[in-house]
């Protein structure tokens, strides 16, 4: 009885000490979310209301949606974006996790040196590679295909690094045991490494999917035509006309942002675990 009371007092004492933290975090959370909240409300308002800075919800959502689907093929763009981002995620994860696995678990001097060289790739500015890459893709006759979309992002130093770091948690003994059991090297990767590294894959998937879903400049360069249009292109197309319908535009922005937000919500626990492994 007394014990529980002191504990309660202790708890309330701790909570009292945390009040500044709560206040600070609440302010930061508010600042982070407010622009997104405004995106939601703007999607329900008319152009003039959005331009005049109305904060609260309006009654124009249905009209905005009708205008949006009349202007452009929203669901096709959603489908395209989803397909490209999905293929990109699968491809990048496979290639980069294999490399990270190879770099860490089979590491020797040569591989470490190669890795140091590959780190340089992270610093190559995108503006510089745009035109040579375009020429390459066009020579390979891959323009307007999913390949054009994914090739530049299939192998990224960041992902390789992430898998390489995480692989340190993978016990070498298990590998030896598996070899004795007669598992091939690639078999070890798929049967043992893959299931054990689930949270790393989740974190990498979130980052890659977000990047692919939101990428604009490169897809815009190699993907032409309505059949291959993605969500960021659709939004950009609507935002640059001579007269912009802001209510409709913000609804488009909302559609373009929701999938990544949902994916983060769904995978956030694994995401946090995967990142934790990466920075060990």
């Amino acid at each position: 009885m007394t014990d529980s009371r002191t504990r309660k007092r202790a708890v309330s004492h701790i909570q009292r000490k945390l009040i500044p933290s709560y206040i600070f975090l609440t302010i930061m959370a508010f600042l982070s979310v407010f622009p997104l909240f405004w995106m939601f409300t703007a999607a329900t308002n008319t152009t003039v209301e959005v331009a005049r800075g109305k904060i609260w919800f309006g009654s124009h959502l249905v009209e905005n949606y009708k205008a949006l689907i009349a202007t452009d093929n929203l669901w096709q763009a959603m489908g395209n974006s989803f397909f490209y981002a999905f293929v990109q995620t699968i491809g990048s994860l496979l290639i980069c996790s294999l490399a990270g696995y190879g770099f860490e678990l089979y590491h020797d001097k040569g591989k470490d040196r190669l890795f140091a060289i590959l780190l340089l790739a992270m610093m190559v500015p995108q503006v510089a590679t745009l035109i040579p890459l375009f020429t390459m893709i066009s020579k390979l006759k891959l323009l307007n295909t999913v390949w054009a979309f994914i090739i530049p992002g299939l192998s990224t130093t960041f992902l390789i690094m992430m898998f390489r770091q995480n692989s340190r948690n993978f016990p070498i003994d298990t590998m030896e045991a598996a070899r004795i059991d007669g598992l091939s090297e690639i078999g070890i990767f798929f049967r043992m490494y893959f299931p054990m590294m689930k949270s790393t894959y989740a974190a990498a998937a979130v980052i890659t999917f977000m990047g692919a879903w939101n990428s604009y400049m490169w897809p815009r360069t190699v993907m032409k035509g309505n059949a291959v249009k993605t969500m960021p292109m659709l939004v950009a197309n609507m935002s640059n006309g001579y007269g912009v319908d802001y209510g409709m535009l913000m609804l488009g922005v909302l559609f373009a942002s929701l999938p990544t937000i949902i994916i983060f919500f769904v995978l956030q626990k694994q995401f946090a675990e995967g990142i934790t492994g990466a920075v060990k």
Partner: protein
Amino acid sequence: MKKFVAVLITLCLMLAVSSALADKLTVSAWDAAFNGSALQAAADDYKANVDPDFELEINIVSGSSDVENDMTLAGSSGDYSNLSDIVLFQDHFIQRYVADYPDCWVSLDDAGINWDDFGAEKLSYSTVDGVHYGVPVDNGTAIMAYRVDLLEQCGYTVADMTGITWDKFLEVGKEVYAKTGKALLSMDGSGNDLPYIMLQAEGKSQFKDGKPYITENEDLVKIIKVICEMAKEHVLILANDWTGYVNETVLQDQVAGVMNGNWMIPSMSLVTENSGKWEITTLPTLDGHEGYAANGGSSLYITANCKNLELAKKFLAYTFGGSTETYDNALRKGGVIGCCISAAQSGVYQEGVPFFNGQAIYSKIVEMGAHVPIVEQNDYHYTCRGYIGNAIQEVLMGGDVETALKTAEDQLLFAMGL
């Protein structure tokens, strides 16, 4: 018998056509509501009246600069395979593109278009060494629109404001600001359309004999001074960018006057509570003659990637070459005012427009378009505009006009490698 032969020929033609792919063309444009609508109108017209199998795929991209980037990418990699059959872009670029990528373009001289039906100024862009490469679509003719009701409060009419000097404009502008709190003019301060429009109304260019003509161009210096003074006196709002211009000045109803290419009209019309209160007229000038200028019109060009040249030429010649149906619907659905003089004789162009106090603005705009003076063009047109815009911003931040313009000229010379 004759009928039978005709039917037979048509059938054969149709078979030939359907076996040689569909009658399909692709086109790139950048504003679904504006030039997208105009192209749709043309496609519907051609389909209904010429070729029922015709199909036009309109690729909307995010801005005219996207079409231009596609051209640069395709031209520099030597791969035209990703271009649309027909592309729409701003008039200032074709001269450079023909010089840089000559094999990318198709002459339209044999398309059977009556070129005399278009204004000379408009055609001066798309004609290179006497060869016609483009079919004009929208007319960039600049309008000066005033709020009649607000002018009235200060004791002026639109007639009083026609054929005036910029000094007079400034004087009226101060009164309007004092009495109504609204600016008589606003503009996108980064796109710097304003000095270009004003200079063209004087019949001058920012270039002379292929070189920048800035510090020694007295008219330009005067214009920059007028602009800066107007901005300081609240007669002119210079927005930070295009969105700011449309949003903050026009949609938020901060202005009593709008001067820009006539493609501005659809945006102005969004503020429905001001319907009937506007009227348009010609532009003020330095010496008070009626000014005419054009800004931002575009034309359609056939690219080397087009597999069906005959169809593309026929389509362009029939529709934007002078079809009243195309032009009427482009105007009705997209607010696109064409440059074809004969097509502007039709009913729609003569109609009074309620938003503009019943004034028949469309025919007036086409008529004004015929007076726009031809001025020297240059590949570095937009680069130059950028630097002049910077100069204005520098003056407004406290710099002096001569130094700012000198900087602009030096930077432009540097960019041009002169």
